[in-house]
């Protein structure tokens, strides 16, 4: 049975139920029940029309639950009077579902959870496992989210930017579990770009593809981080890079630049360099200038300082860094890197150790500790060599 197909059908089945008058929360539960049935029955008895099958079963589940709930008697009467189902809802209904699940009244974590379940077709257990929380907690998070958006009109146009932020979160802060959240974010963003023609949606998809393409080379088997400059570029996924670049170029041609297109452009320039030395840092600095102009984000300014350090030399990078708040995440790590490049390993080693203490994730902390250790070890060797030379000169005299 094709789990991917099943999940692809989730949003359109859900929107059919909502269009027929089911309230969103109950319809969403009914679709989940239908998915469970499909997983159970399809392997032995695959339907000819999977979507039609899911709609029929989900609708029946919905009616069953409405009937069994006597408190909902009145609504049941109304449903029974509804005309028989019409043709399937148009494709852009999926878009309404994205808007609803990323509604501004939801907290980011609620929007992420609801999107993964209602649009992505993941089970509560899978989402809970992916985010390392108990299933009961995730179930409550999702049901609260559904209550929060229960009053929102389904046909009201939403804000694409909120949807993109949710998808970005799924991609960038995804944990691990049986579901590959980065791949899931790409799938959902791809589905979104099919439903709406929007340069930033395309920009985000390109950004994800370009970063995902480097995934195999980003970590060693033991989980240690490999910095971009040291990655084995032969392991980059060239097909994903080509697709990302094509999508990005089409988006940029629309001349409606946004932050995701700018970030994707930077990722594309990295992907385009055959070796780290051949990276076009001058152009990357220009894109960071755009990104700073678009977002005024301190993180973009910090990354710009790194790029400037490569384009114009570490002194220029350190000067740019000095203008930024040193409480910024990774500020100390960047300072350490630039000091090493500027030929001051002692300061760099000290700063790498400080940065390790401030790191917000384990892999980064280990990476920074290793950098400090590398410089300190080299420093001790230098000292020993100094000492030996001094010994020799004393003996010689």
């Amino acid at each position: 049975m094709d789990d991917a197909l099943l999940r692809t059908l989730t949003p359109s089945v859900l929107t059919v139920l909502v269009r027929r008058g089911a309230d969103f929360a109950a319809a969403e539960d009914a679709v989940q029940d239908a998915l469970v049935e499909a997983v159970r029955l399809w392997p032995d008895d695959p339907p000819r029309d999977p979507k039609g099958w899911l709609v029929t079963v989900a609708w029946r589940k919905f009616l069953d639950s409405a009937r069994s709930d006597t408190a909902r008697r009145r609504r049941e009467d109304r449903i029974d009077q509804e005309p028989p189902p019409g043709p399937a809802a148009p494709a852009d209904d999926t878009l309404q579902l994205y808007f609803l699940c990323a509604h501004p009244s939801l907290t980011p974590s609620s929007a992420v959870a609801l999107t993964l379940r209602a649009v992505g077709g993941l089970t509560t257990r899978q989402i809970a496992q992916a985010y390392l929380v108990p299933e009961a907690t995730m179930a409550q998070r999702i049901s609260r989210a559904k209550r929060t958006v229960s009053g929102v009109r389904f046909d009201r146009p939403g804000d694409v930017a909120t949807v993109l932020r949710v998808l970005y979160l799924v991609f960038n802060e995804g944990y691990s579990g049986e579901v590959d959240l980065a791949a899931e974010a790409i799938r959902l963003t791809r589905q979104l770009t099919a439903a709406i023609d929007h340069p930033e949606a395309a920009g985000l998809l390109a950004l994800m593809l370009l970063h995902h393409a480097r995934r195999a080379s980003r970590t060693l088997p033991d989980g240690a981080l490999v910095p971009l400059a040291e990655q084995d570029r032969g392991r980059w996924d060239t097909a994903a890079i080509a697709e990302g670049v094509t999508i990005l170029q089409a988006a940029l041609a629309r001349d409606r630049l946004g932050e995701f297109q700018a970030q994707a452009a930077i990722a594309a320039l990295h992907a385009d360099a055959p070796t780290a030395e051949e990276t076009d840092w001058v152009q990357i600095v220009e894109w960071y200038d755009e990104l700073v102009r678009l977002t005024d984000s301190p993180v973009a300014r910090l990354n710009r300082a790194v790029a400037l350090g490569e384009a114009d030399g570490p002194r220029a990078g350190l000067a740019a860094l000095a203008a930024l708040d040193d409480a910024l995440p990774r500020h100390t790590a960047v300072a350490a890197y630039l000091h090493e490049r500027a030929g001051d390993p002692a300061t760099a080693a000290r700063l790498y150790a400080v940065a390790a203490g401030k790191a917000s994730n384990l892999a980064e902390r280990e990476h920074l500790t290793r950098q400090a250790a590398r410089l300190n070890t080299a420093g001790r060797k230098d000292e020993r060599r100094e000492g030996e030379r001094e010994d020799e000169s004393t003996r010689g005299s």
Partner: protein
Amino acid sequence: MAKYLLLKHYRGAPASFNDVPMDQWTPQEISDHMQYMHDFAARLEKSGEFVDGQALAPEGTFVRYDGEGRPPVTDGPFAETKDLIAGWMVIDVDTYERAVELAGELSAAPGAGGKPIHEWLEVRPFLTAPPTITE
């Protein structure tokens, strides 16, 4: 979305405002305290922010490797150890501010005289997985 540890100390945290040892409370005060902790966890589960909560026995043992083929060495407990963990709660919240807000609520658990203990709780962020997009 970030996980925080709310850490409760037997020893090692600054003294509470309402610092009366639990064995000096009335049985009802102890019941009220336990109920508060229970309700707090239940509320967090409902809000989709609860991950874990555990209490620890005050006495533990120090254990270390003692070389190939030898059993581990055990020692302690050491009365002089300055920090002693009593238990924890793990929460998964959207912001650091929310973590602090919840720790504040937990610290308001009633103690002697039915008044909040004002106990100092330590809020520690979990180290996360590395983000995909960094440059």
